[in-house]
């Protein structure tokens, strides 16, 4: 069964442990600016949202990549960067609607969530399971779809639609 990362903003405590473990896992250094997950915060409201790659089916990063270095891995239900093909043009960083891709200034390469090859470390360290690694079942997809539908309505209102 393919699995997916599900974010629940109601559970997130804003501790930013996911950022730390992600950067340690991927770069060997504890440096949140090089992590693939970022927690956006409104401290005075107690609202925290971990932002990470949505592993879109029709991914914008995939369609703008000039060398076809970004591809979808159906087995793990993720979008992957092939660093042998990547030339570092950063088109994907500018294209991602969620701002989920980053550029590592030290290693000079683009970075994105790779689901830790099927064993995400952020999920292991998240006590509240605000980021959870769940089966990609219909009900879980339904939860995601509901959220995005509400989100789309809000956005339409915000843009005067």
């Amino acid at each position, binding site marked *: 069964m393919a699995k997916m990362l599900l974010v629940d903003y109601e559970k997130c405590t804003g501790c930013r442990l996911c950022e730390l473990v992600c950067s340690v896992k991927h770069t060997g250094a504890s440096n949140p600016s090089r992590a693939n997950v970022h927690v956006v915060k409104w401290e005075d409201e107690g*609202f925290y*949202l971990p*932002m990470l790659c949505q592993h879109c089916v029709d991914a914008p990063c995939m369609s703008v990549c000039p060398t076809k270095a970004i591809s979808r891995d159906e087995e793990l239900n993720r979008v992957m960067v092939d660093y042998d093909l990547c030339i570092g043009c950063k088109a994907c960083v500018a294209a991602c609607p969620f701002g989920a891709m980053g550029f590592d200034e030290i290693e000079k390469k683009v970075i994105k969530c790779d689901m830790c090859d099927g064993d995400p470390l952020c999920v292991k360290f998240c006590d509240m399971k605000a980021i959870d690694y769940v089966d990609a079942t219909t009900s879980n997809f339904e939860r995601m779809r509901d959220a995005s539908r509400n989100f789309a309505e809000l956005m339409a209102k915000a843009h005067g639609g």
Partner: protein
Amino acid sequence: MDLGSFAEGPLLWIVSSLFVIGILARVAFFFSSILKTNKNKHFRWRHIVATFGRSFVPLHSVVTKKPMYAALCYIFHICLIVVPVWLSGHILLWEESRFGWNWAALPDALADWMTLLVLFLAAYFLIRRIIGADLRLNTSRSDYLLIIITALPFMTGYFLTHGNLEPIPFLGDNMRTIHVLSGEAMLIVAVFLFYRTQLSREKCTGCAACELSCPTGTLESTDKGKLRIFTYSYYQCICCGACVTTCPEEAAELRHEIGPGRFFPIVPKQEIRSVELKACERCGALFTPVPQIEKIGQLITDDFIRFCPRCKQHKYAEGFRHLAPWPKKLTIGRNMSGESQ
């Protein structure tokens, strides 16, 4: 002493020693220049040698993109070096000289064909530059000059061995001198021949992928104010073509340039292109070159393309913030501040 014997005697000595000294000086300048740059220090030498070696193997993507043109270029350059060195007439001169060196010569018929090939290809390159409209815009005077200087010794050499020029008054007597002089001119030009990456104004999006691919740090980009400026250090270029094979827009072109002024590394870096950077419409941070954003805008539709990645995250999270079921302002904080007053 007339011009002919001067050209074949003292001048040849002067030119050849200038050639050897010039090439050695350029090698020295190359190493001193490359040791000064701090870019990619950890993997550099292995990377430089690997990229340089790969450029000699005709299997890179320029070959697959323009197979015909690349093949002609390879043939042209091979003939250019092989014919003068292995021509039986030249080897005879070496043997007669005070060095007394000799080596196996090319068959004369093959050398003739290779000379004709060089002349034919030089004519093709020249005509191609004159006919092609966008190519002509990107061509400077030194490009034409280089092709003519390269072709001249081959042309005169071919006439010298084959043509019967006796009836023509001036050329018949002086063909040998002209041949030697043009060969000397070619040697001098070779010392001052540099490479230069040209980034096309129309095609380049300013993504700076070429900078990442450059093994020697020749091509560099720096974000200065609202502009991203690409600079080029002539002495570090090893003509590996990594920038050309990398460029996703096919905007990079590696060109010859005759630059006597660049021989002494007076100007270490030359600006070759500047691109305007797009400012995020929310926070004002400069994040991506304008042409690249325009190109992405043609490929995908996205309202948030005007924002930098960080602001996109923020915008997106803000949408969910409005969905959150709890009140937007916490009352505890307000009460506490109220009590303290």
